[in-house]
């Protein structure tokens, strides 16, 4: 497990993990925090945030040096071994452990345990990816799985656990700036030709911009109009002061949501959407399983499903999109998307289907890459360690990492309205190691101030060994005590994912008469 607090963020998968542990499975957890699973693990590698590459290269070094790799699998199904060897040679365990801040015995032991377990599965979430090296971190994990032959078989694999009910499906459907449905590249002329024929219009050639770049593009005036559907960037984006300034500058902002969110408050038009219980459709889960949701209750007031609003608007812009049912939309998706080609509503009753499902009689694909990889041979990558964008210094001597807690979800528009869940975690708490707490005279429940280069928040302290000295953790769910006032918007140059998991902060005990609440660096908000 790398950068995944599974029992809190994917609790039902967490149940299966704990069952596997009771049945005798070995567990390695690489996470700066001592999560529940880290406490149950054989090896808890409490790495310094942002040092994943060093740690994983060190493990690959051990696996290669001690001859623990799967020669047959590597020879038959991979390429680039020499490149990988040459790179990880420079990461002997002692050095890798020193960079990552973990005991060298743990690193070596974990490498041996991972290579010895047959099969071994890797799971990761955004603790691994929300770094300026996010995509490189994933490549390092893939190296480990390829070296040990842990792909394409039951109980193995490199498994990202998706954080939202339909983040897999939104990606599958091409709600991404560079791909059409089914990850078909927008720059591929054949692909465009196919969609142009189906949709009856010429399609744009150049890739679009990602969510983080949209905020910058509004700030610079390049982007004028933004249509936000069911998202709340005013709490979930890094560096909220910048986000607020940018969205405030938008010539036209329309927000479609269930509630008057922090983002909707900045809009010119707000359109009421319906919840999952008021509409038909499908969600695709983290195991690529497409499942039906069904309308159970009437729509609230005049609220309408997102798809219906979009079709209505399309007609007003001169391009009618007419569908009699959601099943008919799925039929169009299936026609244009090879991995969904065999999917239809008639087949989705019961357990659903796992894509790729290329034909109407295909049973679906629970395990990917059983016989081959899309590119033929999988490539091993030599990846060198790059430190986080922002490191502690004299002015901001501590590291802040952010995430979720079990009983809240994203910007709390959903969980915050349930009295039981709200009572379980009504306010944010910053986790502080006892050593740091003692040095600063802080006790659990005290109001403390966290300051970064971008903003300041005041929140209650929770003194706990879950975090190491020098590290603090703050959940990002809350409008008051908003962690993302502090976070660093620096992006991974390829994946364009922000480094939400590492920024430099200063921890202070607020003077009683001082400012309270939260503020931007320039005192705004």
């Amino acid at each position, binding site marked *: 497990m790398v950068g995944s607090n599974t029992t809190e963020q994917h*609790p039902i998968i967490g149940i299966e993990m704990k069952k596997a542990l009771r049945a005798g499975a070995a567990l390695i957890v690489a996470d700066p925090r001592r999560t529940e699973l880290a406490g149950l693990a054989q090896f808890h590698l409490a790495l310094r945030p942002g040092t994943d590459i060093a740690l994983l290269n060190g493990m690959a070094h051990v696996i290669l040096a001690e001859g623990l790799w799967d020669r047959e699998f590597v020879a038959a199904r991979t390429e680039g071994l020499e490149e990988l060897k040459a790179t990880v040679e420079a990461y002997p365990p002692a050095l890798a452990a020193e960079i990552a801040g973990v005991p060298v015995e743990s690193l070596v032991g974990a490498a041996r345990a991972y290579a010895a377990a047959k099969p071994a599965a890797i799971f990761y979430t955004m603790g691994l990816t929300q770094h300026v090296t996010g995509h490189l971190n994933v490549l390092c994990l893939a190296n480990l799985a390829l070296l040990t032959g842990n792909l394409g078989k039951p109980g193995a694999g490199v498994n990202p656990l998706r954080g939202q009910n*339909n983040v897999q499906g939104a990606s599958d459907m091409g*709600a991404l700036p560079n791909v059409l*449905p089914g990850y078909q590249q927008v720059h591929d002329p054949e692909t465009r030709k196919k969609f142009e024929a189906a949709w009856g219009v010429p399609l744009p050639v150049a890739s679009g911009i990602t969510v983080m770049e949209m905020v910058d593009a509004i700030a610079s005036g390049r982007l004028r109009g933004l249509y936000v559907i069911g998202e709340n960037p005013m709490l979930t984006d890094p560096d909220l002061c910048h986000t607020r300034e940018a969205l405030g500058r938008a010539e036209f902002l329309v927000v479609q949501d269930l509630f008057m969110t922090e983002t909707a408050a900045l809009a010119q*038009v707000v359109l009421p959407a319906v919840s999952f219980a008021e509409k038909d459709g499908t969600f695709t889960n*983290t195991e690529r399983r497409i499942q039906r949701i069904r309308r159970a209750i009437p729509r609230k007031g005049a609220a309408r499903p997102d798809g219906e609003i979009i079709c209505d608007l399309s007609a007003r812009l001169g391009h009618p999109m007419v569908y009699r049912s959601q099943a008919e939309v799925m039929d169009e998706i299936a026609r244009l998307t090879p991995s969904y080609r065999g999917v239809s509503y008639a087949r989705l009753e019961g357990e659903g289907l796992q894509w790729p499902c290329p034909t109407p009689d295909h049973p679906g694909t629970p395990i990917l890459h059983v016989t081959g990889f899309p590119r033929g041979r999988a490539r091993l990558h030599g990846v060198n360690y790059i430190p986080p964008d922002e490191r502690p210094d004299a002015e901001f001597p501590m590291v802040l990492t952010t995430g979720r807690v079990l*009983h809240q979800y994203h910007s709390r528009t959903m969980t915050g309205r349930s009295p039981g869940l709200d009572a379980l975690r009504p306010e944010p708490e910053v986790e502080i190691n006892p050593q740091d707490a003692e040095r600063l005279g802080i006790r659990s429940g005290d109001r403390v101030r966290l300051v970064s280069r971008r903003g300041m928040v005041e929140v209650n302290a929770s003194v706990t060994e879950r975090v190491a000295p020098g590290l603090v953790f703050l959940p990002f769910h809350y409008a008051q005590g908003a962690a993302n006032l502090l976070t660093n918007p620096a992006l991974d140059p390829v994946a*364009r994912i*922000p480094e939400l998991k590492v920024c430099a902060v200063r921890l202070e005990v607020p003077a009683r008469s001082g400012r309270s609440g939260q503020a931007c660096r320039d005192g705004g908000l």
Partner: protein
Amino acid sequence: MAECSVFIDGKAALVPTGTTILQAAGAVGISIPTLCHHPNLPPIGVCRLCIVDVEVGDFHKQVAACHAEVQDGMTVRTATPELERARRFALELQVADHPSECLDGETGEPCELRDLARRYGVTKRRFMEDEARYPLDESSPVVTIDLNRCILCRRCTRACSLVQGQDILWIMGRGDESRVSPALSLPLRDTACVSCGQCLAHCPTGAIRDKHPLRPPVRPEAVVTSVCPYCGCGCQLDLNVSGEQILRVTSNFDGPANRGSLCAKGRFGYHFVESPDRLTRPRIRRDGRWEEASWDEALDLVATRLREIRDRHGPDALAVLSSAKATNEENYLIQKFARAVLGTNNVDHCARL
């Protein structure tokens, strides 16, 4: 796999070795009453309702069908007058200290004990014990524990330890003093309880129940299977509907990803759907003030402004943020709208956040 041939109430069944009598009966459409049994949990055989007559060779005995496995050549009788009398007696003992408002159905909560008691004509108490000996444990923010309705079936304790792996609930005390409780009789709030509500999902009587139900409990008019709107696990669940509202969300034990399990959010996090502050009409901001508008007015304005910006600055001056909360079909339509209608690839969602 080795198979056993058995006769159940005169029906022949061929089932794999290791099948329980209860499962074998179910396979040929015969239902045997149970209380402590739950298909999601290993059998425990404490309620004695599922006793059946079995005969194999010289062996003739009454056994608990949830627990006992079939043997080749076994003959099973599930509903002789003697068995039915024994069941009725077991139910009379169970209802002896069960709250009368529950037996009378005044609570509106589902209760398997009440349903069985009615089926067996146990309408009033033959053995009276004092009611309401236990104060409610309302220390948990999500569930109420009402031991007065508890029938000690141990479904909750098994769910807590074997399904959730949390080991919070135990049977404390012995004999007449037996009760479900966290260790050391601590209030639930003072334990490592994760508020998943697996105990509630397995409780047959409402002894463990939702502390903040969406609506006062009544019998649902419809049960609609859907998928949880929180994380990416893809847990199936059942929306229990009454009138125009969700009454409660219950476990769906057929869901491939979760087999009935839900977490605290997936079980208790639905007040947002019925929240009074849901947006129900389009809103337009004019001179800094929000005004309600018709759909025609709002969508005409959106279409006009999007068209103006596109005509003046080109399609790439527009962008759409789609949603990981929306369905596949909606995401498909949203990206089609961005590309085919607005003419830009500026479409993304929160996969990076």
